[in-house]
């Protein structure tokens, strides 16, 4: 099963994002901060990372830089996920190696569109 990692300091966002990804057939782990996220990546590199930009201690930008330096760290598709929606922040995330950008608040439809854009086949299960 394809794997996803949700990194966000908000428990609510982690729960929502996790549920959406699970309905789209991802096996999901989550982390409340950058250090834990990088440890999980070192353990098993996910196919997609949903990464919050604004987190205490280590922000999304730093997490992404470190992630890309890990062995196999170039493989995951990274979707930056934040309320910060100014074009400067988006451009900075892209330069740091993000593949797509999701502005909060997001829903399943937007998540599906973004996953599709970075190359995942996403179909809602019949019962969803």
């Amino acid at each position: 099963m394809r794997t996803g990692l949700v990194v966000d300091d908000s428990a609510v966002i982690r729960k929502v994002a996790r549920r959406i990804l699970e309905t789209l057939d991802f096996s999901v782990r989550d982390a409340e901060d950058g250090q834990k996220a990088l440890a999980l990546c070192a353990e098993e590199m996910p196919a997609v990372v949903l990464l919050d930009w604004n987190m205490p201690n280590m922000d999304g930008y730093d997490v992404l830089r470190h992630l890309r330096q890990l062995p196999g760290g170039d493989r995951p598709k990274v979707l930056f996920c934040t309320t910060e929606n100014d074009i400067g922040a988006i451009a900075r995330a892209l330069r740091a190696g993000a593949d797509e950008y999701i502005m909060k608040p997001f829903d399943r439809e937007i998540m599906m569109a973004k996953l599709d854009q970075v190359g995942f086949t996403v179909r809602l299960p019949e019962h969803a």
Partner: protein
Amino acid sequence: MTEADFAFLRDYLKKRSGLALGPEKRYLVESRLSPVCRRFNLATLSDLVGTLRLSREGPLERAVVEAMTTNETFFFRDRVPFDLFRDVLLPRAIAARGATRRLRIWSAAASTGQEPYSLAMLVHEAAAQLAGWQIEIVGTDLSTEVLEKARLGLYSHFEVQRGLPVQLLVKHFTQVGEQWRISPKLAGMVSYRPLNLLQPFEHLGQFDIVYCRNVLIYFDAPTKADVLERIAKALAPDGAVLLGAAETVIGLTEALVPDGQHRGLYRQGATHRAAAPQRLAAGF
């Protein structure tokens, strides 16, 4: 809504927009027209029907037609039609129109502009091969309200996230408060005109590429055939028409025939082509 009211609205919408509503669309009519009732201070749908019976063309009549015909759209919707434009139609056009360096594209159900602007972005990506070319994208729609939004080129966070790759967002949009505005360069490539496909459209001139997606599905068979035949006439002899995934010409007309390799893509039929006055040697 009574049976008589629904029957009146079906007939009314068929005459004005070609919209063919089956009995199962009753719920759709109620859900789309209830906001129109509120806007015009009409208590019930029966009051709305009563007003329509008495009045001629005016704001209420336009609002009813627009509410029923406005359809969902987003950037690069369904992706495949745009891959086809980038990988097949545009290269063919560049090869075939090298002499005139002129290309006209019609987005026949432009709605709020996402389709024509998506095409404009792809044209822009091929800019290196199109230096000195005159590219015109014409976006038409029945609804003047949606065209107004298309002309403004302002989209919400939600709209720019649906289908638009973030790289293209950064490249072609600027942020205006909570919204995103399409760049003047792309906006300048597209002109918008209100058009009811049931009315003549010869005045738009001839097109090399026509995108007419997800609009014919609302018409009955004779109306579909009529519109397709007139689109074929508006098409350059070597031009291409792209229809929506659920639409076809098969069984309706021979004025357009499938372009064997690509689903949804059509060209002029042999009989129609023979009647055309001029044909370019280098077809695409």
